[in-house]
């Protein structure tokens, strides 16, 4: 008996990849998720939040491993409560923990996971081989997983999530334990999955720098609630400041800019120039020529994901926004 996944399910609204409404989950007295509502569109979405914010609960709910106490969640139109199996067929999950069997061959295990997701055996064998190749494990696929390095194991974890051609991949801390080159390759791989393979990705990570690199949008949780969500393009808004760094601190440059009517905040070799209009760029350029300043860095200051994230957390360290609140932050439901 077979199931045809080519037809889209009947109840897709607004073509969201994931949609939740008032999702609530309690563990005894602890409220892990509190009426969380958000939508995830296609592309790569980062899932962020402090430890204990409800991310792992959310992931388990999305995989149909837990049922919500209240509210609902749909993945590509399938309700996680009533259709958990369909949901799992669509999702490829790469957990954070070590979860690979040591005495299986990589090829065998990835094939097995493909079969468990419904692939016929012949197809699973072929796809396992191809997938392992795509994640960069060509020759090693006939070796036992137990002998693999951390980087190779992470790739196998990714391959088993990818083998059955999921519509969405859920990656939990995929760069854990990887050295800088491995991190780079994993992030590049995730980028390829999103853009070349056109598979939607939900990426849960504590490394904001990774999310900034590969994600198109974010959902930020705290205390079981969604405190921000949206496209990074929109959230990371430009601030009214331009950062200029010179090779050595240049008081002359600061003077020249102030003379031109711009307010300037000087901090050693780094200077923040007030942005009122695009004219500021010409002013900086001309002031630099005039004072023979060597500018090593010039950029309109934009909110970083870190700025946005911290602004939403309580008790953030002093490094929170200097220039007011994050503009363009869309709040979740309350």
């Amino acid at each position: 008996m077979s199931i045809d996944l080519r037809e889209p399910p009947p109840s897709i609204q607004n073509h969201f990849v994931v949609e939740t409404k008032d999702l609530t989950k309690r563990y005894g007295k602890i409220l892990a998720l509190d009426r969380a509502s958000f939508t995830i569109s296609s592309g790569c979405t980062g899932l962020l939040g402090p430890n204990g914010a409800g991310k792992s609960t959310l992931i388990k709910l999305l995989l149909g491993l837990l049922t919500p106490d209240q509210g609902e969640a749909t993945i590509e139109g399938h309700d996680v409560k009533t259709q958990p199996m369909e949901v799992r067929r669509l999702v490829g999950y790469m957990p954070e923990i070590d979860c690979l069997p040591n005495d299986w061959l990589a090829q065998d295990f990835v094939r097995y996971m493909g079969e468990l997701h419904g692939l016929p055996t012949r197809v699973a064998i072929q796809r396992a081989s191809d997938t392992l190749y795509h994640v960069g494990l060509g020759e090693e696929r006939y070796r036992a997983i137990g002998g693999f390095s951390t980087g190779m194991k992470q790739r196998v974890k990714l391959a088993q999530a990818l083998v059955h051609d999921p519509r969405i991949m859920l990656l939990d801390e995929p760069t854990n334990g990887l050295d800088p080159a491995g991190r780079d390759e994993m992030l590049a791989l995730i980028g390829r999955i999103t853009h070349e393979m056109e598979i939607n990705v939900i990426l849960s990570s504590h490394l904001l720098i990774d999310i900034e690199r590969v994600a198109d949008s974010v959902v930020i949780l705290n205390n079981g609630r969604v405190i921000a969500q949206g496209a990074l393009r929109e959230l990371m808004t430009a601030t009214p400041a331009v950062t200029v760094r010179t090779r050595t601190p240049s008081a002359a440059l600061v003077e020249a800019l102030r003379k031109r009517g711009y307010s300037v905040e000087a901090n050693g070799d780094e200077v923040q120039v007030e942005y009122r209009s695009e004219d500021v760029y010409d002013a900086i350029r001309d002031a630099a020529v005039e004072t023979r300043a060597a500018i090593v860095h010039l950029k309109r200051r934009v909110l970083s994901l870190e700025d946005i994230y911290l602004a939403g957390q309580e008790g953030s360290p002093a490094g929170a926004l200097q220039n007011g609140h994050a503009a363009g932050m869309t709040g979740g439901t309350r």
Partner: protein
Amino acid sequence: MSSDMIGAPTAQSAVADQKAGFPGRLPDGRPATIEVQNVSKWYGDKVAVSDLSFALGPGVTALLGPNGAGKSTTLKLLTGLLQPSRGQVRVLGQSPVNNPKLYQQMGLVPEQEGLYPFLSIRQFVELAARLHHVSNVREATDEALRIVELLDVADRPLGNCSKGMRQRAKIAQGLVHDPQILILDEPLTGADPRQRLAMMEYFTRLGNAGKTVLISSHILYEVERMGSNVLVLVQGKLAAEGDFHAIRALMDDRPRRVRVTCSDPRSVAAFLITVPGTRSVHVEEQAIIVETITPLEFHLAVPQAAQSAGAHLYGIEGLDEDLESVFRYLVN
């Protein structure tokens, strides 16, 4: 008791060390708290580290390297958990092997687990405090727990804690005795973004206060924010040492890559190509990427070039100045 006095080399050991080649000082004159001379460690045929020589002093230093480069072996050699096959290690002037008194001055936060699941967080940290002969155990424990933000869950057994909490408990036991030297192996594992920032700030403060903090980490972006001093290991050997900006400057076989965002990139490019030292100019739709071997002249020339071309200058960005780029160049 001033931490300068404990473990400071005596007159005789200083002379002996000088004879052994331990200068006791860093090149800039600051005292060296950790010195390693020609250290190698091998296990049968396998060479874990080979001919390491370096010195560390107060401040934050990052120990970097690909997996398998010998970082954990190096950390074990510094903490006396391993004895070198050849060469000498001196921490605060003494060998760390079988040196319990020295351990009072050192804090180690290892990567591996192996904690006692039945102990509560507080008990675990107090145990460390007692082992290090801390005089006011309760206060020191509270302070350490406060720093790692585990004070309100201090009575939870370690077995019931998440990986991130166990990691922070480990950090707490590493600093409860206010050690002169703190050695941390991937200390931020499992920490959420805000906790990471808080801990990074804390380590930076420790470095500024004169402690010797050695952090091994793969997250170069974060390491960079705590300080510029690095030790890079590749395949068991020391590949680079010092301020990574200075290391970058030494790489004169690698031209600097700079992206200049401007209107009318072609005209600006035409001017920039005349700057001596420009090796290549790569034109994109709204920017140019230039490779230059004379960065100072280049940076001086950019605003001038834009002005002469009548173009607006929107951005100047060094593409390979950061630690990640420097590291990549060192490893390849």
